[in-house]
């Protein structure tokens, strides 16, 4: 029976070997290519800061796209990446919105969170209004994302007194600051940068229905973008920039539609025939080319009768006010400016041989309707089995404010930046695993 024992040994050995060995796939060699990621800084606005759900708060900061890029850069020589994080005790930061479930009528119930704020006071900036001030941040910093900043403001010296998020990063108190944003972010040496600026130069106009803000003039944009890139590349740093999304393709302006409003009104009274809006050219019937802001939904104005029993938004003399509507003409104006800004951005970046993430084209793909091979309709794109679209709440990309992104959305943006960087500089920064990042939280 000796032979028999040997057989058993062989069998046991085979089982052991097979249980232990893993199937391997060769991974591309880690390379930084022609770039140096050892000191990376991120320049930009709210998107860069990790702003989400209508606020800047700790979880959003921890999932900012620059922090995701920096994490992925580690394997190709990336250095430490510090962010101006709110503390755990003040983790709600500026306060933000959360999704508390659906109302009886199926609309989302969105409520504010403001338990652990990082608000330290208020500064009266005179004609510029009141500025909310946040707990100062003093440590090393690589993420210079300042919510609200326009390209127009990067060389404006008093800006550190007018934006609480910028003031927070500066040593001086509001009222005493005179360092420009551009000087501040370039004060310490860096080897690599990302820059995503210019969104607010068009966004403020779009989200205020074309009446609450002005578009930055095209030639001013050109001059400032030249100055920005010249300064960022002055010491030989390489970098990546992004174009500006089409402001009319974000959920803030695509969720509340004229048709949905009219359908809702007709359910209550079939006599309602049209939705009326106020425009610069007078009051008129709205079409599906006029975009209603997401914020209009929470005003509760729609359908309210005035003293003459004219229902709000449903009567020519009681239309939806201009600040809630980006009408067809305004949409065209905003698009024209954004296209011009993007032409500027691309031509300057190309001249400086920077990596370009075309956020305009990418985010537009999220708003396109398709029919699958098997006849099933869907909007947007599929990325690793995830349907990513510009649908509000369910689209995975956009957070509850309809403008800023979810952690998953920011991870997608980080991967798009990484692709652009790798393509431009021959590096092999690995992409982030989207499965690790959340979408809108459902209770």
């Amino acid at each position: 029976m000796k032979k028999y024992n040997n057989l058993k040994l062989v069998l046991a050995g085979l089982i052991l070997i097979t249980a232990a060995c893993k199937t391997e796939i060769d991974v591309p060699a880690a390379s930084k290519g022609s770039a140096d990621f050892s000191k990376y800084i991120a320049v930009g606005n709210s998107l860069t800061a990790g702003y989400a759900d209508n606020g800047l708060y700790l979880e959003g900061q921890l999932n900012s796209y620059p922090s995701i890029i920096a994490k992925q850069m580690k394997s190709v020589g990336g250095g430490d990446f510090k962010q101006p994080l709110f503390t755990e005790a003040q983790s709600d930061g500026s306060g933000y919105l959360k999704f508390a479930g659906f109302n009886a009528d199926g609309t989302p119930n969105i409520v504010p969170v403001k338990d652990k704020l990082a608000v330290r006071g208020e500064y009266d900036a005179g004609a510029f209004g009141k500025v909310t001030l946040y707990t100062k941040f003093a440590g090393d910093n690589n993420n210079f994302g300042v919510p609200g900043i326009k390209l127009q403001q990067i060389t404006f010296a008093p800006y550190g007194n007018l934006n609480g998020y910028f003031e927070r990063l500066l040593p001086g108190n509001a009222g005493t600051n005179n360092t420009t944003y551009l000087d501040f972010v370039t004060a310490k040496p860096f080897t690599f940068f990302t820059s995503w600026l210019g969104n607010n130069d068009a966004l403020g106009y779009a989200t205020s229905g074309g009446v609450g803000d002005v578009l930055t003039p095209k030639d001013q944009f050109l001059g400032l973008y030249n100055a920005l890139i010249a300064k960022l590349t002055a010491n030989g740093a390489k970098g990546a920039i992004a174009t500006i999304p089409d402001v009319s393709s974000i959920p803030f302006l695509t969720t509340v539609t004229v048709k949905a409003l009219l359908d809702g009104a007709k359910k209550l009274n079939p006599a309602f025939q049209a939705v009326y809006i106020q425009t610069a050219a007078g009051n008129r019937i709205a079409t599906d080319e006029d975009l209603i802001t997401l914020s209009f939904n929470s005003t509760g104005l729609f359908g309210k009768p005035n003293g003459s029993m004219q229902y709000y938004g449903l009567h020519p003399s009681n239309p939806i006010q201009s600040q809630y509507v980006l009408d067809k003409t305004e949409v065209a104006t905003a698009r024209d400016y954004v296209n011009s800004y993007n032409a500027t951005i691309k031509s300057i970046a190309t001249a400086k041989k920077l990596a370009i993430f075309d956020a305009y084209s990418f985010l537009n793909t999220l708003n396109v309707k398709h029919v699958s091979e098997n006849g099933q309709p869907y909007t947007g794109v599929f990325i690793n089995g995830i349907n990513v679209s510009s649908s509000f709440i369910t689209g995975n990309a956009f957070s509850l404010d309809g403008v800023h992104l979810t952690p998953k959305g920011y991870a997608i943006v980080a991967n798009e930046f990484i692709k652009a960087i790798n393509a431009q500089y021959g590096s092999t920064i690995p992409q982030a695993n989207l499965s690790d990042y959340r979408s809108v939280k459902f209770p």
Partner: protein
Amino acid sequence: MIRKILLGACLAMPATILAQGFQVNLQGQKQIGMAGTGVGTVMDGASIFFNPGAVSMLKENQVNLGVSPLFFKSAFLQSGSSTVENNKDEIAPPFEAYAVWGPKSGRYKLGIGAYTPFGGLVNWGDEWSGKYSLISLSLKAIYIQPTVSVKITDNIGLGAGFVYNHGEVNLQKAVAITQGNGQDSRATLKGTGEGYGWNAGIYFKTLSGVSIGVTHRSKVVTKLNDGDAIFDFPASIPAASLPTKFTSQLPLPATTSLGFGFYPSAKTTIAFDASWVHWSVYKELAFDYNVNTTVPDTKSPRNYGDGASLKLGINQQQTEKLALRAGIGYAFTPVKDGYVTPEAPDANRFILSAGLGYDISKKFVIDLSFLYEAVKEREQTNLESNLSGTFKTHVYIPGIGVSYKF
């Protein structure tokens, strides 16, 4: 070197033939040792599966039992990533059981077999990059086949069996709806189903001594009715709006095989099988839910082509009691470019086998087998999910069987 020769042989094959999918070619320990050949030879009761026509040629009545713990070791490298992800170590247990009886020196034999010709067990876990396509799939098809085989002449055997399939499926995937705790939602579909088919074959010995087998196992459409659909979704999505039941069907394809047995000496058997697997019946994986308020019915295109395999095995009776076996094979995948999914990360595969049989007594035989399959590395972007990356799989299958002859 062997690989090179085989690859060379494959290049000569028409480019349109593509073999394996969910098919599990583990239906007899002796045959596994010979790379899964058995259509044109008579080894044991496993002929019920391999060629019902050959069953009548068996000299003895017998019972054959075997099990082949299957280690499916797959790896995935997402496009643009540097992290290789592996599926979890879970062991699928394909088995086979056959009983053959007939009057001594009679012209007919009756048999019954239970075996697992299709199945899959793959668990990628709920953290990997493709979890929205699949977390895990466990698929089992157990065929039960009563069989009659008749010797028309001393050299020609005909046989046929009725196939009843008991199928079980458990499929889980992550759904990108974040719960309050930050975790993804999850969908689980599990159920059992049934299907029917047949298996028939003819076996004949030529004057030159070469034996030839031709078989056809029919397609078995397995219907899953009233399966459980479990949607682990956030509480804010009303449970009443979610499905609780589903129906689906999986067409398990027909296989047509041609096999040869060569006998260069009294102690040596060489077997060669060529099989054509009619996988092109697998057009889509569709789930029809009882409630569609929140979750629409789904239809995922599969659009498989046909599969095929070529196998060569040898059995050498080393001593009176000990038989040694070996085999090689190559299988062409039915899964076309753009349709590779994590549930069946398939590609063309190379097969190597070894085995031995030992007669403990006149009545008892023990067989050991080992099969290794190297599924080629395949870089793919799925057309439906856009899951993009490289799959590579190695399959290791030790097996043990026991036969009792009477």
